[in-house]
């Protein structure tokens, strides 16, 4: 027993102050929200589009590139090849949005409309207690790992009433990772159908948003929103958290915005 107490003293109190205090610092080489300098882009080349592994960067005409963060792997290859330095990945970790279209950075609209809170009724239901069922449906396991990290003592999402639960029957929301392989299609559908209304869907990572590195593979559907339900409708995604994988802070920021715990920029 004395050893346990001594170890406890040595390890100290390690839960972060965020969101009351500052967020943990991002690594200086972190590749977060990209910034596109339309004035710098001379529109002469298509190097960024040619370098992008997933087709997230497209360059239709003599304007700055269009960038779809839902497909982006945040590898930074486009920024590296741009001769004018018109693309820059900032350290801004805040990336979660409420609609798929909001992830597309078009010319003239380079701002990311960060996720707003649920409506009043849902916020009343889930604001202080959100139970999530996580389903991994393909992918590489990294999004699962960095979602799970939020349950460790440093992040401790149970502070916010958020918890991962074992059964869809106990869940208020479905947190989907992976491109939805055809082999997981049925299991994902059954999990969603087994949850009680009202229910939320959160897509974490570029795979779950667009298929990510596996865009175009015949083995995958290409994202959670491509899953057809028994009703004939498609899985309605309430929150998109891009990244490959998203940083835990990006995921936490998205969840807290959804619950209305963070409203300010």
């Amino acid at each position, binding site marked *: 027993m004395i050893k346990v107490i001594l170890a406890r003293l040595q390890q100290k109190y390690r839960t972060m102050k965020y969101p009351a205090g500052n967020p943990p610092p991002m690594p200086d080489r972190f590749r977060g929200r990209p910034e596109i300098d339309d004035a710098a882009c001379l529109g002469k080349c298509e190097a960024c589009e040619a370098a992008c592994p997933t087709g997230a960067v497209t360059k239709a005409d003599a304007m700055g590139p269009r960038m779809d963060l839902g497909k982006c792997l945040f590898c930074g290859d486009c920024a590296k090849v741009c001769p004018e330095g018109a693309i820059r990945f900032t350290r801004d970790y805040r990336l979660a949005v409420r609609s798929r279209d909001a992830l597309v950075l078009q010319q003239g609209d380079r701002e990311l409309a960060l996720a707003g809170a649920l409506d009043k009724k849902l916020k009343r239901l889930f604001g202080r207690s959100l139970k999530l069922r996580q389903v991994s449906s393909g992918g590489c*396991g990294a999004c699962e790992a960095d979602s799970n990290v939020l349950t460790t003592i440093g992040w401790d999402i149970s502070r916010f009433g958020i918890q991962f639960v074992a059964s869809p029957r106990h869940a208020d929301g479905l947190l989907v990772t992976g491109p939805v392989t055809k082999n997981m299609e049925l299991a994902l559908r059954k999990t969603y159908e087994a949850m009680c209304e009202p229910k939320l869907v959160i897509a974490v990572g570029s795979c779950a948003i667009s298929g990510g*590195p596996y865009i175009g593979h015949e083995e995958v559907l290409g994202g959670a929103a491509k899953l057809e339900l028994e009703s004939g409708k498609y899985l309605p995604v309430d929150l998109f958290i891009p990244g490959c994988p998203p940083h835990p802070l990006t995921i936490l920021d998205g969840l807290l915005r959804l619950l209305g715990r963070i409203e300010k920029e």
Partner: protein
Amino acid sequence: MTRDGIPFVSLVNDDAIPLESIPSYSPDELALLIKEALGLGLRISAYFGAAASEASLGSPDLYVILADDERNRLYAGRARVDKGGFPSVARDCPQAQLFEREIAEQFGLVPEGHPWLKSVRQGCTEPGIRDFYRVEGESVHEVAVGPVHAGVIEPGHFRFQCHGERVFHLEIALGYQHRGVEEALVGGPDKRSIHYAETASGDATIAHATSHCQLIEALSGRRPPARAQALAAIALELERLASHVGDIGALAGDVGFLPTASYCGRIRGDFLNMTALLCGNRFGRGFVVPGGLGYDVDAERVAELARRLAAAWRDASVALNLLFDTQSVLARFEDTGRLDRAAAVELGVVGPAARASGLSRDVRFDQSSGMYRLAQIPVSTYDSGDVLGRAFVRKLEIGQSIAFIREQLDCIPSGPVAAEDKPASSGSLSPNSFAVALNEGWRGEVCHVALTDEKGAFSRYKIVDPSFHNWPALAYALRDQEISDFPICNKSFNLSYCGHDL
């Protein structure tokens, strides 16, 4: 046959050879040679089919790569299949069984005499509906789990045949994560190739990316500078540290010992953040690239890494020692999920699971490449073969990795981190060639094999994640165990679903 007279072409890790130098046999002869070589103590690193074109899908060449760990050698042989089947060696050599099933599934060939031929990745669109081995009798019951599990983990299906609490037999059905990685690599390398390697198994990004880059480098004759090799090895050890610490924490959690579970869960993050210090990403995305590294480090960054490493080691050693000083934990680990040495040899187990069963088997030592050719890490083994052994080997390896990184940080070679003339990101590799790259990821041997066509593009790309070798060992270790011990047995192997499913 003797160890000196294996009639295959001999090569070393991280090397490319002309395709034509691989001797070709009939399927019968190849089966016999594999059996004899395994009898001499070699093991299968990879065994796969490769068809020259769509038209010849039904008559592929079978390639086998055998590892002679004592002599630091690899052997490659092949056979042309032309009649819809080939003789199975699985009855005599259980480590071949999953490879043969994979060949059967990918090429529609029958491994004749296979004891339990069934799919590897297909046929799981209906959860749990497949043929499973079934035990019948009074009070015998079946437990089916998955593909969706209780925790935040990947999908797989487990079918237990039980008598009360006691497990007679466990069968593991995977494939839910299958997303077509190997198929998509054919025709490359191209701009997406490195991302396929990095996401083959996301928690082993550095190991898979290193193997992939070594193939490209071997096939283009452009080696990364020494500085890049040293830093890549540091990143590989950081990956091992994060996972090993996390695994021990998870094992502690599964037996209800919360102090170590809580501390290790957090300390794992410290190691991931050290990888992010190198390249901005906690999993090492973008760090290892063909021809070298995507990022260099300066003296300040090295000092910061050393400082963080010391702090994390201080915390980790307290958390680990606490666990191994607690009798109630050790009592739960001891004699649980035993995999004896003979079974580990037969099943061709790799990584910490093999070393915990007394096998001195470690790619960094036996088939070294990159920096490990110059700086060796002693192989950590234990002989109990149980959960305790697998936890203890991880603890030993954590100490070794810390010592290795410290030593390397003191003497990182100077110079650039990327070759001046980087290998082209598309095409133009050496044509009609065959290359193998092995690395000791934290789960064990990560094997990448590439065949190129006459234009120098990949005509076949084979990835063997260590989990592919080890899943059957988990099933074996569960025999005669209590079903309630499945979580700690599973955690003690901690295998990759996505690395198996590809």
